[in-house]
């Protein structure tokens, strides 16, 4: 069945729309941060003001084009948050979990991801300003992006609690525990406020590389599990049916 036909006949089309938007958003996000703007992996925290000016000049168009895309399409981050909120609503737990998750992640997106876009775009648009100011924007951009991961910690714990209390079998329980692992790595990035060098700086082996490895696995896993939830979902309120194995 073609995508167009399934959108017309499939009662789950809204869910699939949200799911495909989630995949599209995370792909866009990766392309913007890793390829276009090259703001991930993060720049070195110990740059001097003059080196910062060169850093901005080096990726001038990348920053402008990449973050313009985010300003236009960044709202699609709402699709993954809403789909996850839907998954919690589908569980046998209080709606309070879903609402807390929704509100937390909606607010967390501002320091966790929009601040860096604004700061870096300002830097790219005003290259003639005092290098000290550009240096400040550089620090502000990366510290707001990396240093505020803690805002996602409680959200991850809420999702974990909902999964572990749920009796509808919306997600496998091991994924509940993976949420705990993810929440714990959100703590690890906090020392990047203190260290400008070494393994705990914002580009450090522990604070960045290990964290991103865990977060990357977590993201791939939850996108896959949301897909399997939509496939199994009977759109009811009771237990989600087990997967049907078709030959």
């Amino acid at each position: 069945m073609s995508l167009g036909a399934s959108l017309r006949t499939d009662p789950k089309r809204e869910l699939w729309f949200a799911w495909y938007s989630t995949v599209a958003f995370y792909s866009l996000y990766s392309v913007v941060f890793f390829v276009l703007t090259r703001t991930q992996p993060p720049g070195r925290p110990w740059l001097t003001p003059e080196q910062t000016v060169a850093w901005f000049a080096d990726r001038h168009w990348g920053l402008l084009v990449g973050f313009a895309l985010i300003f236009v399409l960044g709202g699609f981050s709402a699709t993954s948050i809403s789909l996850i909120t839907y998954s919690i609503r589908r569980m046998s737990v209080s709606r309070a979990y879903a609402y807390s998750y929704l509100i937390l992640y909606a607010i967390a997106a501002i320091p966790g991801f929009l601040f860096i876009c604004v700061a870096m775009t300002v830097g790219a648009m005003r290259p003639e300003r005092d290098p000290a100011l550009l240096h400040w924007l550089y620090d502000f951009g990366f510290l707001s992006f990396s240093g505020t991961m803690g805002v996602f910690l409680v959200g991850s714990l809420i999702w974990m609690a909902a999964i572990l209390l749920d009796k509808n079998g919306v997600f496998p329980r091991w994924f509940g525990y993976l949420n705990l692992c993810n929440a714990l790595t959100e703590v690890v990035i906090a020392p990047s406020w203190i260290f400008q060098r070494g393994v705990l700086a914002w580009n450090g082996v522990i604070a960045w590389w290990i964290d991103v490895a865990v977060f990357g696995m977590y993201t791939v896993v939850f996108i896959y599990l949301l897909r399997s939830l939509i496939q199994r979902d009977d759109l009811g309120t009771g237990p989600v049916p087990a997967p049907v194995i078709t030959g």
Partner: protein
Amino acid sequence: MTETERVPGEGDMWFFVVFESLVFTSYFCVYLYDRAQHEHAFLKAQSALNLPLGIVETILLLTSSWAIARCVQEVRAARYRSAQRFVLATVGLGVAFFGCKLAEWVRLIGDGHTFTSSEFMQHFFFLTGMHAIHLLIGFVVLGVIRYQLADPQHRSHQTIETCSTYWHTVDLFWVLIFALLYIVR
């Protein structure tokens, strides 16, 4: 041995044990690699640690692990009252461990050995701090066991075993952290 084979606690909890062990192992690898790069500086900073205190902490946590394992045995034998006492003992030993940890941090910081004073201390405070967070979550988990034991309606042997598995995991991580921070030369 003719006992039937069974997974202790919930199978999915073992995913956490393995995954979190691997995450900690990655932190340990970074520490050991860094350490080999600056061996003298690490040895010098390491000499500020108080090994006997570390050993006392280790024994406290090992004993708490034993106590929660005894608790599970009592639960299996349906002796819930005695199981309750073992949970309390576990909490007590965990609190004693945490108290020692706090005292150790206070003493080190008082002597000028802080999170930022040397690379060794950076790893020391990071690893012991991360472990302490796992320990604090462990108190919540022990609270779940106590709640389950107190109320016959909510008593699930599987949940109690799953919670005890978490507590043992906190012990597992400490055993490695202790050897790597206090003993390794």
